[in-house]
């Protein structure tokens, strides 16, 4: 795909294994899109307010957008809350909806309708992506921070399954419109996030195949998070080790040992990352964006900003230009 056009989509799905930094990448993309003047909604699923935390704002109740600035809002999307919201639309009397929701049978109904919650979550994302206020689209861009791999496939698969299962009903008809959005390369791109390590790469390759063959969703970018790039070589360390005996002060020897330990760790990560970056390049046909490991005491909003700047430099020279120096 064309790098520059990433932010011209309506919906960016961010998917990947748990713990690889999906939310961080989603937040960074949100900041970038907002800087480009796009009215952006970052929708997080089951994230316990993680996105809000990373952007330094308090979390809002499920289903409500909290604005970070004029252009960026964050929302935590929850299946149950979305289902309730949907019921209010299809059962127009408020009192009726309350009676349904407060009934104990309701939870059994939800449990018996396979994937209903997942469907409602994706439905809510679709609703926000298509939403208009007084004839104008509410958001230029919706970034969907999907749950961990296995789950996100379950979510993304639901609309198609629902269309097949409930074809004639209201839910079946609306599912079709969701599938149309998810598979439209002009409006949607699915982006994968991984680290360059064995298990996450295995899952990412699998996910990529499913996205292509099963979901048929248009691919966006592949973000490889936390990559290490040692600025020295194994020979440098070997050389230093060979001369260790020439240090006579025990304190200096101890310092040298620690410096060499850290250097070995960094070389080790660089090698592992290199191996799996090559595997990603050969098995996944998507433009790859490396995001370097952040050496920091505490990971927070400053780190997310630094990552946004880094991504901007890699994917959109034009965007970087418009961002000015504020990012460095």
């Amino acid at each position, binding site marked *: 795909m064309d790098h520059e056009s990433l932010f011209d989509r309506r919906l960016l799905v961010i998917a990947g294994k*748990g*713990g690889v930094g999906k939310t961080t990448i989603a937040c960074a993309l949100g900041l970038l899109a907002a800087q480009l003047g796009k009215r952006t909604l970052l929708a997080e699923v*089951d994230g*316990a307010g*993680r996105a809000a*935390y990373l952007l330094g704002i308090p979390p809002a109740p499920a289903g409500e957008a909290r604005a970070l600035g004029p252009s960026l809002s964050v929302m935590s999307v929850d299946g149950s809350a979305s289902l309730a919201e949907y019921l209010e639309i*299809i*059962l127009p009397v408020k009192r*009726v909806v309350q*009676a*349904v929701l407060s*009934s*104990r*049978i309701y*939870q*059994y*109904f*939800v*449990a*018996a*309708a*396979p994937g*209903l919650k997942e469907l409602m979550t994706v439905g809510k994302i679709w609703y926000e992506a298509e939403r208009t206020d007084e004839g104008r689209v509410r958001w230029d861009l919706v970034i969907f921070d999907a749950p961990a791999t*296995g789950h996100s496939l379950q979510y993304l698969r639901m609309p198609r399954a629902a269309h097949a299962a*409930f*074809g*004639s*009903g*209201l*839910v*079946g008809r609306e599912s079709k419109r969701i599938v149309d959005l998810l598979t439209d390369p002009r409006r949607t791109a699915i982006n994968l996030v991984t680290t360059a390590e064995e*298990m996450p790469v295995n*899952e990412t390759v699998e996910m990529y195949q499913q996205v292509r063959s099963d979901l048929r969703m248009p691919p966006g970018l592949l973000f490889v998070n936390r990559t290490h790039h*040692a*600025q*020295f070589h194994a020979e*440098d360390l070997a*050389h*230093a080790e060979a*001369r260790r005996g*020439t*240090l006579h002060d025990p304190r*200096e020897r*101890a*310092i*040298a040992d*620690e*410096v*060499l330990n*850290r*250097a070995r*760790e*960094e070389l*080790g990560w660089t090698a*592992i990352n290199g191996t799996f970056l090559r595997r990603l390049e050969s098995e996944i046909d998507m433009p790859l964006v490396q995001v370097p490991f952040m*050496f*920091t*005491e*505490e*990971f927070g909003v400053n780190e997310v900003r630094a990552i946004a700047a880094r991504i901007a430099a890699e994917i959109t020279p034009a965007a970087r230009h418009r961002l000015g120096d504020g990012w460095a």
Partner: protein
Amino acid sequence: MAGLDDVLRRHRVVICAGSGGVGKTTTAASLAVRGALLGRRTMVLTIDPAKRLANALGMHALGSVSTSIGGDGVPEGMLSAMVLDQKGAWDELVERHAPSPEIRDRILANHFYQHLSQNFAGSQEYMAIEQLCELHASGAYDLIVVDTPPTRHALDFLEAPQRIADFLDRSVVKWFVRPYFSAGWATLRFVNRTVGFLFRRLEDATGISALVEVSDFFTSMSGLFEEFEPRVRRVYQLLRSPDTAFVLVATPEEQVLSEAEYFCRKVHDLDMSLRAVVFNRTHRELSGARRGVKPDEVKRVMQHLVGSAAVAERLADNFSRYETLGRGDGLRMEAFRRLLQKRVAVAEVPNFNADVHSVADLQAMHPFLFSAA
């Protein structure tokens, strides 16, 4: 403060809990290897669908049946591993209780059943604990190490049995136990008429005939769920037994530790015993006399060793970056330790950048887990 060796010697069940992605599976496997080396007949039970434990133990086709693992100094027959196939475990429950093959097949194809056995929050955890109870009762093992499912919140594991019990609450289930189209449903004597009407309306609108399936499921399975309360009581008895120890696994990240803190409080509230905390993938700042070493000194020492000022500078920069990581990790771990009771053992495993592929690799963790190892 007793060490982790004591935890393994004094308990029959060791449950490794923690958020997803902290290295629980590897830690559980490593503890089990140690248990076997201590001369205890050990079983490690994992529920991780990624079958990572199988990889760590160098086995590729680990079924739901226990496999004996030997080699690398572990005596033959002392260490077994089992992967719980939770879907299989539910199906087995149905097999055992269904009155006829026709009803069994109908249940297995039921949407409600499929949700309950696969997607219901806590279902996987519940089945893991049931399996644990059975293994424990069999008496075949001196030590069972449990790797808990990869849930976002470690707490799910503790609450799962109660949640299932609440869900299968008898008073509600009783209401469902009658054919959907029977007089009972038509007149809806057992619930508010309006609510019944609304659900019909909802089913019409969505095209989902969900309640038929619920009713069908409970009618077919009536009897089984009557026994759920005593089963859940038995499960909590084992979790609270003095034979059972919880080991919390956490990485020193802010998000992981805040979940871990909540977990510790909850374990305590539920009268269960947290015996150890394993900090995994940690970095530490230099300590003692070497603390606060100046960049210039580092550079000077390294230049003496490598010759090139440029290379020395890069090595010094790398060192200071890792010191930054270590400072953050150290502060968070110290703050967390202050919350723990004195008798809780604490171990710290540094960040290895090698994948675990064998029993020998698992043993590489031992010097950090067990100070005397």
